[in-house]
């Protein structure tokens, strides 16, 4: 019986093996290397339904292009290379013409002004080589004065539909505007669009102001002022520019404030008797809670996105390093172990990274690391880089760079978390201490 079974087995195997070997299953290949380069795209001027809207259509297309190309992830194709023109928003797209110039994404749009004087912007995004639309067409309505914001919103949508992550173009930055010589420099709070447009000043230059921070909803700002001669924390409402001082313990200095994700909790540093510790305050009740009580200096606290933890700077080990602890206080865990001094940590909005300032071998760096201290990556190096702040999508970091010498000037820079696309942010005056707002509604 066993003999017959083995015979059958051998016969079937011999019969089947050649057939199986010759069956035409799909060819399999693995692609594990690719290229990283800006994605070429085309954004013709948005079609204007009326003559009055023609200029707006052109301007909106330019702002969208500046937003996308400014990320370093996209490359705009010049209009001189276009083979076909977009003359109607509803006409079918001639994909072959756009393929021929290697446009991998195409953004078309139309602009009109309705009877109520409102600006109406419609747009579509196409994957040219797939010959299909990415997402669905969208229409935005707003005031004519707000055409830049509408352009930013379109760019956010395009960015999101191509990359898969949220944009950051419809956001603002509050910073300290600086003017005058280094030894007599005046400082005042200013707010602008993320790209440097629409600058507005929030305070005068009568006193030194430092380290403004946005609330989670972007409608309020915390900052430190030396108005009374000692550093005190102020809360400023952006809408009506009204402000109030946070009442802290008498005889103390308070600084380095930052909002919690609930918008009602504030953490800050307070110095009393030469010792600096972290405190938490409820804005509604005004009650404060001590979070640390070490004899060392604890400062620059920053909440995790879920509000459960805090990353901060402390010199309890002898040199300034980064620590993480529960937002209610308790034992802290050191996360920075590289050579040099670490400071001004900021938790990423996505929760996966911490941005920081590092001083090592006479140079300053902006870097990022994971929450366990691994994968530390230094993105910049200069005479003085400091004070990182995250874009709302956690992809870009803005910071202060100051040049050397008596005529040194502070200015704002931004860099992608990969270390690419390092570039200055245009400002009319000197600028420092940027804080990036969340995306606007």
């Amino acid at each position, binding site marked *: 019986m066993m003999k017959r079974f083995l015979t059958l087995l051998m016969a079937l195997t011999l019969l089947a093996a050649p057939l199986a070997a010759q069956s035409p299953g799909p060819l399999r290949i*693995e692609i594990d290397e690719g290229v990283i*380069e800006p994605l070429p795209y085309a954004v013709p001027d948005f079609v204007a339904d009326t003559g009055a809207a023609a200029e707006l259509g052109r301007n909106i297309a330019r702002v969208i292009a500046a937003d996308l190309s400014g990320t370093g992830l996209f490359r705009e194709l010049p209009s001189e290379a276009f083979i076909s023109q977009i003359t109607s928003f509803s006409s079918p797209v001639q994909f072959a013409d756009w393929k021929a110039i290697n446009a991998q994404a195409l953004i078309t749009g139309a602009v009109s002004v309705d009877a109520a004087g409102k600006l109406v912007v419609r747009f579509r995004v196409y994957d040219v080589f797939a010959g299909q639309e990415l997402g669905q067409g969208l229409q935005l309505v707003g005031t004519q004065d707000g055409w830049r914001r509408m352009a930013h919103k379109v760019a956010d949508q395009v960015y999101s539909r191509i990359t898969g992550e949220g944009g950051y173009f419809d956001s603002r930055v509050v910073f300290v505007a600086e003017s005058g010589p280094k030894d007599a420099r005046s400082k005042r709070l200013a707010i602008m669009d993320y790209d440097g447009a629409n600058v507005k000043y929030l305070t005068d230059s009568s006193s030194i102001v430092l380290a403004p921070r946005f609330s989670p909803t972007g409608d309020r700002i915390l900052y430190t002022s030396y108005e009374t001669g000692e550093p005190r924390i102020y809360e400023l409402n952006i809408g009506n520019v009204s402000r109030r001082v946070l009442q802290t313990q008498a005889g103390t200095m308070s600084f380095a404030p930052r909002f919690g994700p609930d918008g009602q909790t504030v953490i800050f540093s307070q110095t009393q008797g030469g010792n600096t510790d972290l405190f938490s305050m409820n804005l509604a009740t005004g009650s404060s809670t001590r979070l640390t009580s070490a004899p060392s200096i604890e400062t620059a606290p920053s909440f995790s996105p879920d509000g459960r933890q805090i990353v901060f700077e402390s010199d309890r080990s002898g040199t300034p390093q980064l620590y993480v602890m529960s937002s209610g206080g308790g034992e802290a865990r050191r996360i920075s172990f590289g050579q040099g001094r670490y400071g001004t940590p900021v938790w990423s909005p996505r929760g996966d990274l911490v941005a920081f300032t590092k001083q090592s071998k006479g140079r300053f760096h902006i870097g990022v690391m994971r929450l366990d201290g691994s994968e530390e990556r230094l993105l910049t190096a200069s005479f003085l880089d400091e004070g990182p702040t995250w874009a709302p999508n956690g992809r870009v970091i803005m910071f202060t760079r100051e040049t050397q010498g008596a005529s040194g000037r502070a200015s704002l820079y931004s860099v992608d978390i990969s270390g690419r696309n390092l570039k200055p942010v245009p400002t009319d005056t000197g600028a420092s201490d940027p804080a990036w707002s969340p995306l606007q509604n």
Partner: protein
Amino acid sequence: MNTGQIISGAGHLALIGWALFGGVFRAEPLPFAVTDVTAISGEEYAALIAPQTAPETAVDIAAPEAPEVEESAPDLGSGADDQPEITQPEVAATPPPDTRPEVTEVTPPAEAEVSDEAPELTPPAEDTAVLVPDVAPEAQPQDADRVAPEPVAQPEPDTQVDDVVQPETVPDQAADTPREETDATAPEEATTEIVTEAEEPAQAAPSRSLRPQTRPARPEPQAETQTAQQAPDEPAVDNNAVDDAVAAAIGGAETGTATPSGPPMTRGEKDALRVAVQRCWNVGSLSTDALQVTVVVGVTLDSAGKPTSIKQLSATGGSGGAVSKAYEAARRAVLRCGANGFDLPRDKYDHWRDIEMTFNPENMRIK
């Protein structure tokens, strides 16, 4: 008994006799080695083994005399020792301190200018020659917008960017046939990795020796013998040989799949296809979440090598929008580089009509 039977009998007897006595069944002796030996007598043997007997145990062993201990301290003399000559190593010149930044809220970087590290000694020339090989400094990747598996130098200013390198041609008046005028083309400048502003220069000496790469794992036999009806991601868990063989035989008979024409794809041909696709797989605009997704794409090509259908077969490492964006990037890669048809051997069309491409971005996350 007739004559034929007699002759037959005699013949058979002769044959049997020859077989038995003629050495037909005698096997050839096996080869063997021959070693010369010398016979010795019993006395000689006893003499040989005599030294191997165990020695007698010694009981009385004289202990060695202890050395005399000199209790008096040695005369050290009263004069002070000469100061040993200590040659101070050459200390590298300390660079002038940086000008302190005039920023009140910033901790002054004074301490950073004091180095705790030991001064670097300049090794002697002969040691340098022995210990450090004369190695040219490792080339730093240049800063370029494009990151690719192979670095590409910046093309000449008037050169058009194209995947193919082509020199400029001009009309030749003396030629018999007029030559078409074309512009020079070259691939776009590329670097192999992102170089941040904070990147330190590479060390001249290699940090480790080069190791031969491990041999790639052999392809799973099942992957080569998979039938067209089998699901791509179906794991091969049935190890019963009989069932496998029967299933393969029946499957082939039932589906009636045609035997692919031509020889199978060579490794070089597969590599050429892989390189062609990866040249167009641009992950630069993908989110970090989408860069966690490995997507498997099924591609059907026509006989000219152009994609006729592309579909997502599976994806791992992400969900939702991230998978969608990873698939769209893979689709763009196939469509872009396959627009004019992939360069594949036409006689092996049956082998590459259906392709499963796995796009694995693991190596592209931090580049």
